[in-house]
């Protein structure tokens, strides 16, 4: 299965600032997904990122708040903009399912906004 390197693993940020999270995949994938996991909750899909096109955002998430880049088939970034304490969560990236291995996830970024 694909191996995903996600950075940073954690960060503490001041409110009003922005943080960019990176995911690097060791193989080419068409679709990448970005999730938010609030404390004690399940995963919520933020957006789907395809290479060469605009990301598709889920209800409740907007591009101005969570801009996504997908410059090639192995890399994507998610920016959390103008952060507030409510943005404190774990953010995970994932790649499209492999027939044998299902979805693969990055190791997650634990974000705390103070």
């Amino acid at each position, binding site marked *: 299965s694909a191996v995903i390197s996600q950075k940073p693993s954690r960060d503490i940020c001041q409110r009003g600032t922005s943080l960019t999270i990176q995911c690097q995949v060791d193989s080419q994938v068409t679709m990448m997904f970005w999730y938010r996991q609030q404390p004690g909750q399940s995963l919520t899909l933020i957006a789907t990122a395809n290479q060469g096109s605009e990301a598709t955002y889920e209800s409740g998430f907007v591009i101005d708040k969570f801009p996504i880049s997908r410059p090639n088939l192995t890399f994507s970034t998610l920016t959390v903009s103008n952060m507030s304490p409510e943005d404190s969560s774990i953010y995970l990236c994932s790649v499209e399912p492999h027939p044998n291995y299902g979805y693969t996830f990055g190791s997650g970024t*634990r974000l705390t906004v103070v």
Partner: protein
Amino acid sequence: AQTVTQSQPEMSVQEAETVTLSCTYDTSESDYYLFWYKQPPSRQMILVIRQEAYKQQNATENRFSVNFQKAAKSFSLKISDSQLGDAAMYFCAAYAGNNRKLIWGLGTSLAVNP
């Protein structure tokens, strides 16, 4: 709409014993996939086991097995010979159709008592 329901927020099991985590789902699709993921405190999302809906045989991976009841839309996970390292959040998830989006349950927190 697709839904995944985990009705057990918390479970506990004695080391070396067997525990079953429940999951029910709902989808109108005929072709779908079901997954169990494990998330330890490290927050890494790890695929435990997957089941294709068209397969009647229950999936098995070492100490982990599922009881897939298609008519009842039930997909429970059985962990045999529980180990301390099995302590984690367990999420049931499903996807169907062409959008490749995972639908997640709320999770079950499993404690393993020595």
